[in-house]
């Protein structure tokens, strides 16, 4: 299942859906909002936007790349848009495979590829302005060196 959603991601039910009698391993990666601090300010939340439907298609492409490379029987990638509060999941990747090596490698690959090719952008909303991650563009007067 590949989805871009506006609501909180229910990782538990993605995992239950990935349990299969032909698989011995499920590897899951969850990206969560981490609160950085600098110059006396702090990140209050993240805000995500996407170019759809291109972003949806790119998630599916990553799934196809994975099933070409590894013996993996189930892949879910769900990415959230809009405001994501501290500690909340912004992305969840769930991979079920007969064996654990491919499960680990595929879930690691998925998050790296998401960060390379999926047209989704996040900005950090700080107490003193915002900053687009990766673009050094925003309203903070003292942008943190990333």
């Amino acid at each position: 299942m590949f989805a871009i959603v506006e609501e909180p991601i229910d990782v538990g039910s993605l995992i239950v859906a990935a349990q299969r009698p032909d698989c011995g391993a499920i590897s899951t990666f969850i990206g969560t909002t981490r609160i950085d601090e600098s110059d006396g300010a702090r990140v209050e939340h993240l805000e995500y936007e996407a170019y759809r439907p291109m972003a949806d298609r790119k998630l599916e492409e990553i799934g196809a790349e994975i099933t070409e490379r590894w013996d993996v029987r189930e892949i879910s990638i769900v990415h959230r848009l809009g405001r994501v509060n501290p500690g909340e999941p912004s992305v969840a990747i769930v991979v079920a495979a007969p064996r654990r090596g491919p499960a680990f490698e595929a879930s690691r690959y998925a998050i790296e590829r998401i960060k390379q090719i999926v047209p989704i952008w996040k900005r950090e909303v700080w107490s003193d302005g915002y900053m687009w991650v990766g673009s050094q563009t925003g309203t903070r007067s003292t942008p943190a060196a990333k």
Partner: protein
Amino acid sequence: MNGIKILLFGAAADRAGTRETVLPVEEEVALGDLWPVLAGRYPKLAEMQHNLAFAVNGEYARMEDRVSSGDEVAVLPPVSGG
């Protein structure tokens, strides 16, 4: 639609001050030919030229790819999902 629809995202939308515009084109042109027009219209966008990627109709495209009226071009800053 008459012309090429331009979508801007993230920092690119911020710098352009808009998320969408239309560039009139008379005939098929290279994607690269649109850039001077966009850069002229949005000088702060021009500053991030070397960090931008482009998509035509939802797929990554190169500057030599051809576009014509009715196509959708997306201006993509470095992606930062995850």
